[in-house]
């Protein structure tokens, strides 16, 4: 077998990796380490940071607003992960049975929300939800359902689901495309054999399609859960965490603490906890959702 120059010792290959590594370190490692360091200080963004050890973390665990943000984030996960996953899978099953030309058009249309910047989507949906002149409430009033024309983004009960539904609209097309790709990967002869054996569609989905789509389900869950914990732009543009913290999530809280209240050390502690949460949830998914073939 022909040997490659890359088969040499690591120290010799380091020169090839070094430029990329330096850029990665400058823009990823150093900021992360700085945030970790900052989280052990009290800093107003102007004066000299003051070392407080684990003080910020201790305060965080007694901070009711932080727990409100975590609770809201947990609820948002249903809208970022669960509903798009179910809708995406159902649509993928439907779209996969359509002829290829129509399938391309429908797939493109359903995927389209995902290619738009989420901040733009937030601004557009804020207008759609506007109680005074937004088309949603205008439509409800026009068909005699004025009682349902709520101030969606200003209502304590409905603000979070209203933001969440925009996340569903944003992510379901993405989930659908991933599942479509997964379905194309499955050998058609398996479905053929099941049909010959008289298996009904529900049984085929439960015993064949779903288990064989587990790698895609895992990917979709990983990405959407990361997106839900990272959620900021949609909420910032639509509600800024209001009304009265009804849509507050850790990233919005971090922003408020840092940029509005100048508590950068405490804000960094919120960011670190958020990052640890992402690691923890992803670890659980890695451990619990495993394809049967060990892939």
């Amino acid at each position, binding site marked *: 077998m022909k040997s490659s120059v890359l088969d040499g010792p690591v120290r010799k290959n380091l020169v090839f990796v070094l430029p990329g590594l330096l850029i990665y370190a400058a823009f990823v490692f150093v900021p992360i380490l700085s945030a970790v360091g900052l989280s052990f200080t009290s800093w107003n963004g102007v004066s000299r940071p003051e070392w407080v050890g684990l003080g910020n973390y201790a305060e965080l665990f007694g901070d009711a607003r932080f727990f409100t943000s975590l609770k809201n984030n947990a609820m948002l996960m249903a809208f970022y992960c669960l509903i798009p996953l179910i809708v995406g899978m159902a649509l993928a099953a439907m779209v996969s049975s359509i002829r290829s030309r129509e399938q391309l058009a429908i797939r493109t249309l359903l995927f389209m929300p995902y290619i738009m910047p989420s901040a733009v989507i937030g601004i557009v949906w804020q207008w759609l939800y*506007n*109680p005074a002149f937004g088309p949603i409430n205008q439509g409800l009033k026009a068909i005699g359902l004025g009682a349902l024309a*709520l101030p969606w983004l200003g209502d304590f009960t409905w603000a979070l689901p209203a933001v969440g539904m925009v996340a569903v609209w944003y992510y379901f097309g993405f989930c659908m495309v991933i599942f479509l790709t997964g379905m194309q990967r499955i050998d058609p002869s398996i479905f053929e054999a099941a049909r010959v054996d008289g298996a009904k569609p529900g049984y085929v989905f439960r015993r064949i399609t779903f288990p064989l789509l587990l790698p895609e389900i895992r990917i979709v869950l990983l990405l959407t859960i990361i997106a839900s914990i990272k959620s900021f732009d949609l909420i910032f543009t639509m509600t800024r965490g209001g009304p009265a913290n009804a849509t507050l999530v850790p990233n919005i809280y971090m922003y408020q603490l840092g940029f509005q209240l100048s508590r950068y050390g405490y804000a960094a502690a919120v960011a670190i906890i958020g990052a640890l949460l992402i690691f923890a949830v992803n670890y659980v998914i890695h451990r619990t959702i495993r394809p049967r073939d060990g892939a």
Partner: protein
Amino acid sequence: MTKSFTRSSLCALGATLAAAPALAADLPVWDDYSYEGQVAVIESLIESFEAANPDVEVTRTQRTFDDLALTLKLAVSAGDGPVVTKVNQGAKDMGTMALEGMLLPVDGYISEYGWDKMQSQSLLDRDRWSEDGKFGEGPTYGISGLAEIVGLYYNEKVLEDAGVELPLETFGDFLAALDKVKDAGTTPIAMGTAKQHLALHLMAAISQAQIDAPNRAELDDLIYGRGGSWETEGNLTAATLMQDWATGGYFFDGFQGISGDDAVQLFIAGQAAFLTSGTWYFGDMQMNPDIHFMAVPAPEGVAHPLSVGGVDLAWAITSLAADQETQDLAGSFINHMVNEDAAKAWAAAGYLPSTSLPEDHGLELSGLLEEGIGVWNALNANDAIGHYPDWSTPTMLKTIDDNTPLLLAGRQTPAEFLALLEADYESYLATMN
């Protein structure tokens, strides 16, 4: 071919650079003038400053009020911010920056250019911070170009259609007018709480109208961090009225989901009878000739009610003006922004300048601006310009924003609401002592 093209391009570029007159100074300026009418005025003022100082190039950065607050401190501390900037008075921005040495005192320029003759001491006090962090005393860190009054806009036609007799003389007349408008099927008060601070302005305007100017010391002490209480009779009245109006249908239907700016546009379109907000909307309000402006009328027993307001964000010099020459240039720029000519430019565009207009200004002022100037002169004559409540502590704006929706929804009593403001204030005072 490529080499010769590159060589000739470089030569041409070099010749162009050599031919261009070298500018002696670059002056980075940040401001918060983001409405269309304001942008036109500020750009014309910068143009005239550059014409008067041909060796200076002003690089203007326009930011919204919120963006300015977010980025200014970080930019100046990083050494990459403006030399001249607008900065919000109060503990959160100007107070912090002054204490950290990020702003330079402008007292020398006050005497050099006579700013103290153009604006009252009470206005300049709002830009003063002592070395030990006391607001309203010590060196002066800025001066403003525009006056601000948070007052009562009313739509004359809507009120007449509802059978309301004008003018409104007393606070009781105002309350009666609200009921009449509501009975006529129109929204009495334009309100939107999803974004911006209309609710804060309404509450502060009602609350401070309960204070007679000779008794203002208590409010001054509270805002300037000398102590006091938020749990006052006036604040309780204002919070109770706000809650009653919110739950009784006196605001726009669905006001919780409408932003403040949208509520203002709906008011301009004639969708409500009253709006409590600031004179910074004069430019927009002129689109509807039925709209007029007045101070919140006095309750019984109050001769000269306070009106929230004062001045817009102050022009200030940052610590990035490292040498005397740059500082003097910055002082000269600020003078150009607040002198009588600037006042005339703002007035001509329909805005209320903080510097008094010369008597022979020769401008044809809009009706709304005439009303605004009348209110401003009366307030100054009676020492009745109040304060923005959020200036009192760095966190007060957030505390009010977080809790107002709960108050308006009836999930907090007015007393509980005020207790939270009190707690915020006490916590700030504790950090100062």
